[in-house]
Structure formats: C-alpha cells, structure tokens
C-alpha cells in the first residue's frame, strides 16, 4: 500500500512544518473520503490540493479547520496533534466556497466577527481600526456599513477574505474560493491572492479542481485522486516529471500513447506501442520490462515538418492562438494528438493547413514513460 499513498512528508531543508497529516483517513459511512494521507505543509507556503470533484480535497481541508475529525491517523498543527480540537479553538481560518458571510451583519461586522470573539475582549476602537485596515488590504475601504447583499460577487469574495485574515491565522484555508467568479475576475483575484499571501506571510492552503488556478498560484501542488495523494511537488515538477499518467493528464495537457516496456537501458526505455511501433522514452520512475506504461508527450514538445523523419500525420484542425498555433493531427495507427507550434516554426515552414500530410517528431527526452495508472 505504501507505494500508493505517496509519501509527501518531506520538506526542503530549513522549512518549518506548520501543519501535517500523518496516515490520515476519513470515512463517511462506506465512503473513504481520505485514504492514508501523509503530507507536511511548510510555514509560509502556498499549497494547493488539486483533483477532480469528489476526490476528497474539501474533506482534507475540513480536517485542518476542525470541522471533521480523522477516522484514523493524526492531524497536527504546529507540532501538536489536534484531531479532536474544536474549530473555534484552532488558529486556523477558512474562506468558504460560497463565502458564508453573515447576512444579518454589515461588511464591518462580518470582518470584525473574529476579533469580537477574542477573550479577553478587545476594545471597540481597536476592532474598528483593524477592520478598516483589513478592508484596505482587500481594497474595499469605505464599505464598512454596506450590507452583504449590496456587494457584488467579487466584493463578497474579498469580504470573506478580510474576515478570514483578521485574526492572523497560522493557516488560511480556501475552499474553491474563486469558483463562483467569472473568468476575468478570477484572473484578477488569483493575482490578488498571491500578493496577499506574500504580503501577510500566512500559510495558504487552497482547494481547487482548476489546474490552471493551482499552477499559477501555488508554491506546491498536492494532486489527489479517490481520497489519496498521488503526487506533491512544485508546479514545474508536476509538469515536467509527473509521477503517472493521471498527474500528467491533470496538470497541463498531454498526448498519451499506451504500450509495454521492451527494454530498459540507463535513462531510456523502449516501449512497444499498441500499433506495434517501438519508441524511445525517458522513464520518470523505475520501470521494468513488460510493464504497461503510457508515453506522454506535451503538445509543445512535438515538432511538425513537411519533410524528414517522424510519424506521418494529417492535419485535422488548426487553431491560431497568436503566439502559438494548435494543431489537431491524426496518425493512421496512433490516433489523434495535439501539437502546439510556436509562431516561428510556422513562419519557417509555411502555415500548415487542414488536410496537409506532415511529419511529427519529438525528442526521446520529451517522451515521458509513465505508469499508466
């Protein structure tokens, strides 16, 4: 089992652990929502849980917040086991998916709520001062007396953010905080969140099913599947060295060709594809002869030319993206795959049109040999 439950409990030297999952599982009746999670969250980092809906991201987050207790294993905050510590006693705050702002309170009352709960009580003017500072941080200065329903979605989002950071939590949890915003606002908020995280130095733990969001904001991404952690790493690591086909497919776009390993030599492996072709690739982890694998080639790693070596491919579709052009091409036996050509190569070789028959090739180092799971 150990090989499946990816061990992410190592951090780079010098990084301090602020929170940790140790062999954490969570059962809801017969559903195993979290399955043997092992993860250290470093102080000050921006970590994202990434995975499709239902893979257990929210459950993991809720165990950090204190809304769920693990069925097995331990959740640690600042080195202490907090499995059964109530949410209101944890130095952790959360931005809820649909904000969960209090409808009977003004913007200022919402934001000051956390301060109002502190004992001994804080003086009123100190609360007001901190609230107005928090409003400035999220660029909503002057909105104190507004009602929640008078605010737009994006503004509500920022109120929720201000409310969650006002107690200066050790961990800020964000459950799909941008999912309800439109695309343009989402982009803006992504940048704002990142800036805020650097400015405050608070550890952010974000949950998202949007790979673009995770890639653009996170220091590290924890990819999940069916309640398990599949791989943890920086966006670049996940993109360049995905641990298996699932991660390669979830982080970025890739073309996959299935086959079996026939030979392993040094850093290369030969793979016999389903059509009988034999190709060279670079294994990301240990592979053995006879193993079922997928060759993964990123679209931008494939080159198209009018003549020369490579697999013959016919252009089915062409989408001009400015800097790049995306081609959907079809190989007789390997099927369809995507190619992303830089503008320059098009200028050299002339534009390729639908119906053109070309040669597609890639470096063996760009063909990752991945566990096909």
């Amino acid at each position, binding site marked *: 089992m150990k090989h499946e439950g990816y061990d992410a409990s190592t951090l780079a030297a010098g990084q301090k652990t602020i929170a940790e999952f140790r062999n954490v599982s969570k059962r809801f009746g017969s559903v195993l929502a979290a399955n043997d999670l092992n993860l250290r969250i470093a102080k000050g980092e921006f970590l994202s849980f990434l995975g499709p809906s239902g893979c257990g991201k929210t459950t993991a987050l809720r165990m950090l*917040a*204190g*809304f769920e207790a693990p069925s097995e294993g331990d959740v640690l905050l600042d080195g202490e086991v907090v499995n059964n510590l*109530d*949410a*209101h*006693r944890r130095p*952790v*705050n*959360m931005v*809820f998916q*649909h904000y*969960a*702002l*209090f*409808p*009977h*309170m*003004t913007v200022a*009352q919402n934001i000051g*709520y*956390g301060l109002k*709960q*502190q004992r001994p009580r804080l003086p009123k003017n100190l609360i007001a001062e901190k609230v107005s500072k928090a409003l400035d941080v999220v660029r909503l200065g002057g909105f104190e007396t507004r*009602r929640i329903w008078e605010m737009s979605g994006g503004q509500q989002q920022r109120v929720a953010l201000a*409310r*969650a950071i006002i*107690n200066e939590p050790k961990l800020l949890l964000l459950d799909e905080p941008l999912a309800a915003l439109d695309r343009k606002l989402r982009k803006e908020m992504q940048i704002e969140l990142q800036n805020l995280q650097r400015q405050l130095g608070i550890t952010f733990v974000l949950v998202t099913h949007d790979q673009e969001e995770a890639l653009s904001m996170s220091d590290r991404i924890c990819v999940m599947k069916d309640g398990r952690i599949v791989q943890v790493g920086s966006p670049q690591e996940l993109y360049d060295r995905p641990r298996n086909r699932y991660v390669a497919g979830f982080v970025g776009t890739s073309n996959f060709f299935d086959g079996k390993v026939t030979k392993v030599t040094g850093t290369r492996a030969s793979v016999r594809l389903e059509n009988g072709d034999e190709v060279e690739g670079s294994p990301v982890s240990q592979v053995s002869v006879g193993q079922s694998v997928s060759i993964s080639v990123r679209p931008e790693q494939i080159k198209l030319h009018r003549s020369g070596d490579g697999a013959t491919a016919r252009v089915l579709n062409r989408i001009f993206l400015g800097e790049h052009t995306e081609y959907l091409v079809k190989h007789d036996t390997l099927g369809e795959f995507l190619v992303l050509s830089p503008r320059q190569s098009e200028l050299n070789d002339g534009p390729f049109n639908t119906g053109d028959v070309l040669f597609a090739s890639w470096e063996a180092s760009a063909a990752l040999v991945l566990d096909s799971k």
Partner: protein
Amino acid sequence: MSIRTRNWLLLAPAGTLFLALLIVPLTVVLVFSFGERAPAGGVVPAFTLEQYANLPARWTAFKNTLTLAPIGTLAALLIAYPLAYFLAVRADPKWKTILLVLVIVPFWTSILIRSYAWIFLLGGRGLPALLEWIGIDGVRLINTPFAVLVGIIYGYLPLMVFPIYVSLDRLDKRLLEASSDLGAPPWRTFLQVTLPLSVPGIATGCMLVFILLMGEFLIPAMLGGGKVFFVGNALVDLFLQSRNWAYGSAVAVALVVIMLITVTIYMRLLNRLGARRDDVAIM
C-alpha cells in the same frame, strides 16, 4: 387582458371573502355596540356609549386574556424553540419528515377530544392522584389558570414550532461553521448567528399564537371550568346565553382594538430591532 385587470382578478376571491366575512360583520358589530339591548334579546339601534361604560364589569375576562395570552405565547415559544432547533439543525435528515408529522399528528383529532383528555389528566383521578400516591397532597390542577395555560400551550405548540422550524431549516449551516471557525464557541454562535437569523420565524410564530389566543374560548371553557374566563367566553355568554348583543358587540370591539394596539406595538418593536441589528427583513 391588461395586467391591471389580471391583478384585480388575482385579488378578487380573497377580496370578496374579506369583504363579506370581515368588513361587513365588523361594521355590523361596531354599529351594534352603540345600540341598546332589546327586551327580547337583540339590539335596538341607538347612539349611546352605555355599553362601553359597562366594560369594566367584564374586567376579569380581559385581565385573564391579557395575562394568559402573552404568558401562553412566551411559554409556547420557550418550549417550541428547542424543539424546532432540534428538528431543523440536529435531527437526522432521514427522520426529519417523520418527526415533523409527529408534531402535527395531534391536529388530526379535534381539540375538543384532546381537551377532554386533559380534563382527565389534570382532574382528580389524573396527575393529582399520582402526586398523592408519591406523597404530595392537595394539589388541584383542573379549573385553574395553570390548567388553561397547559391546554393552550399544548394546543398552539405546532403553530409556534413550524415558523421557527422553517427559519432554522433555511439557515445556511455553513454560517454556523463560519462562526465557529472565527472563534465563537457554540453558545455564542447560537446567540450571534442562529438566534438573530431565526427572528423572522419567532416573530411569525408569536404573532400567530398570540392573536389566536386572544380570541380563544374553548380551552378556558373546558379546562378553566367557568373559573378562568377569557374574553372569548364572555362573548359566547353575551351573544348566545344572555342575548345581550349590544354589550357583546362593545366587548368584541374592545378586544379588536386591544389586539390592534398590541400588534402595532409589537410590529414597531420588531422593526426597530431589525433596523438596529441591520437585520434581515422581518416578515
């Protein structure tokens, strides 16, 4: 058909009913209340304030109504709120419907029959007998204000439970998590989030129960045994037994006026509360 016509059509059935069954009778009662008693019962039209001058004679009925209706409303609220809270927030969703049905099951039998059950329970061979058995002697329950209170609380409880249940059920449970997340222990979450957000349900329930209690006559008649008289009982007496319609009308008008005044004050208070708390709109 214009929107206007259609709007009138929408209002027509209720409007007709309202006119026929409320405005007309109320006008009749108002006219009667200034009349004089006819020798054979009924009313002689007149314009005299004599009937109103006689109102203090029925002071006890007003006093009973005006103490037991608010107390009954408050007691029903205190009992209904935890029940509604349990049903809406705590109960397993699988059981919710069944539990809700159980709350209204008593409505399936007539209040008359249920009141007879209470007569037995509170009467000499019921609870007092049980108390005597464990050594507490001389407790009289039936035909006391207490018996009436028990009866009205019992009878009106579902009316209080439902509006509160609805407002608590609609309450987004994530708000409670958010409150807890921000450091509020459970009881403070209740006071600062749950309670204010259920004010609309409380307000509706109290209003409903209070207004109906002001006009109650069956429960006091049965469990008060003629000793705990409500205004409703006075009206039954004046219209059906003594056939003093003019005086009865004056008593009825007085009751309506008192109700209007209390309800107006009540609404004012609620609205002020709502405004101060920046609350969700009340009703």
